């Protein structure tokens, strides 16, 4: 079964930490991603740039509305994602708990929509 891990964390807090700690945090992510890969469960993953670089589009009555910033102003922001293929939810939750993001913020585990259901 395929799941997306949506990794949420407080951007500002992350941006504010000293360089050494920041590098350590990135190191943790790199190690985590590698362990997913070694286990053969990783389909894809990427880090997202901060929400300051985001632009949101809505089309209302045929008119395009383009707004600077993310979809919603939230206390924690989507910072990255993983797509994994594992046997069941328990396996997915077990991996998600190891994601560094789970300790600093939260990881939402959402199944992908499979065709034919």
């Amino acid at each position, binding site marked *: *079964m395929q*799941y997306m891990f949506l990794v949420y964390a407080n951007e500002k807090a992350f941006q504010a930490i000293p360089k050494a700690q920041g590098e350590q945090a990135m190191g943790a992510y790199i190690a985590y991603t590698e362990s997913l890969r070694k286990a053969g469960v990783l389909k894809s993953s990427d880090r997202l740039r901060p929400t300051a670089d985001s632009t949101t589009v809505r089309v209302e009555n045929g008119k395009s509305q383009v707004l600077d910033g993310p979809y919603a102003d939230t206390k924690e922001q989507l910072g990255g994602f993983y797509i994994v293929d594992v*046997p*069941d*939810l*328990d396996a*997915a*939750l077990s991996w998600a708990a190891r994601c560094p993001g789970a300790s600093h913020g939260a990881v939402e*585990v959402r*199944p992908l929509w*499979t*065709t*034919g*259901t």
Partner: protein
Amino acid sequence: MNDNDHARSTADAVARRSYGKLVAFIAARSRDVAAAEDALADAFAAALADWPAHGVPRNPEAWLLTTARRKLIDSQRRRQTAKAAAPELERAAELLASAPDEEGDEMKIPDQRLALMFACTHPAIDASVRAPLILQTVLGFDAAMIASAFLASPAAMGQRLVRAKTKIKQAGIPLRVPEHAELAERLDAVLAAIYAAFAEGWQDAAGTEPARRELAAEALYLGRLVTELLPEEPEAFGLLALMLYADARRRARRTRGGEYVPLAEQDPELWDDDSIDAAEAALRHASTFDAPGRYQLEAALQSAHVNGRRSGRVDSEALLVLYDALLALSGSPVVALNRALAVARVRGAAAGLAALDELAGDARLADYQPYWAARAELLASVSASAEKCLDVDARAAARTAYERAIGLERDPAVRRFLQRRRAEL
């Protein structure tokens, strides 16, 4: 008995002893509990049409299982495009091919009910729907019955059950007994759901609400089942003991006229000795594991109450020690409340009130009738033994507390009891 009656009574008997096992077995691989229930319902309907005409099969469970599986495959074929159906059909074909053991007339369906119960109480399932889900999928209760027992509208309850079953299927919640490392923690959720069902059933003290009356008995059944399927888990025995102690007091809870009888005034002669013996045995067995837990402690408290009343000597200090341990373990405000009453028994009403005052800020107790009733009782005690000027204040406060309690109570018999107490002030 004519053919129709024979068919119906056999089907009912099979439903009673095997419904949950059939659902669990069919749903185990697909995680599609709703489809399993539907397929089984169709199979039972087919049985009631077929058996009067062709005779009841020698192995009715096997007949129902085969029919249900066929209906499952049929409905999957109808629902899906050929390409997407491949894995589903493969799984269904496996299911059809794998035959459980048949021993003569008794079909041995592998018992996956525990796995089903763990799925129903998975952390990913909303806590408030876990007990209803177990009642429906393992015991075959319908949504309307469950709704009335849990004070929800049938439509709302039906929706929540559908959502939960969809979650199990779509999010991939496995039907599996957890590994040893997580078993104790996950078991707690199963036990909590069974206890929630028992507590709902327990509300019907007068035994006049059919939905409720069944619940306590079914919860006891589930509690016993878990001890049979997990004989190494002391908390399962603790819960069983707890429910048996409560159930033993069923006939003593109301007078013949329907009036409320508090525990301290119940006639031990009206308690069911067999239930109490079974409870003591379960608790004793649990204690051999030397792994105390919340349900064992609650059962121990019940045991102390029961033995105290029977012998005429209640060991209040021992009770307080048990409450201290239970509070440390659970942090529950209800436990803290009952502990405050135990404090009062050991150190006097004023000390009990002081313990209650510590809970005054807890929002969870603000609408909890027993909290206000306890407050009123302790204030009344204080006023009875106080000097004149304190007496008036305490009495007024007691009256107010009784009024709060009365306003929060659902059961007319309990309300009348509280009103009588208030009038006695």
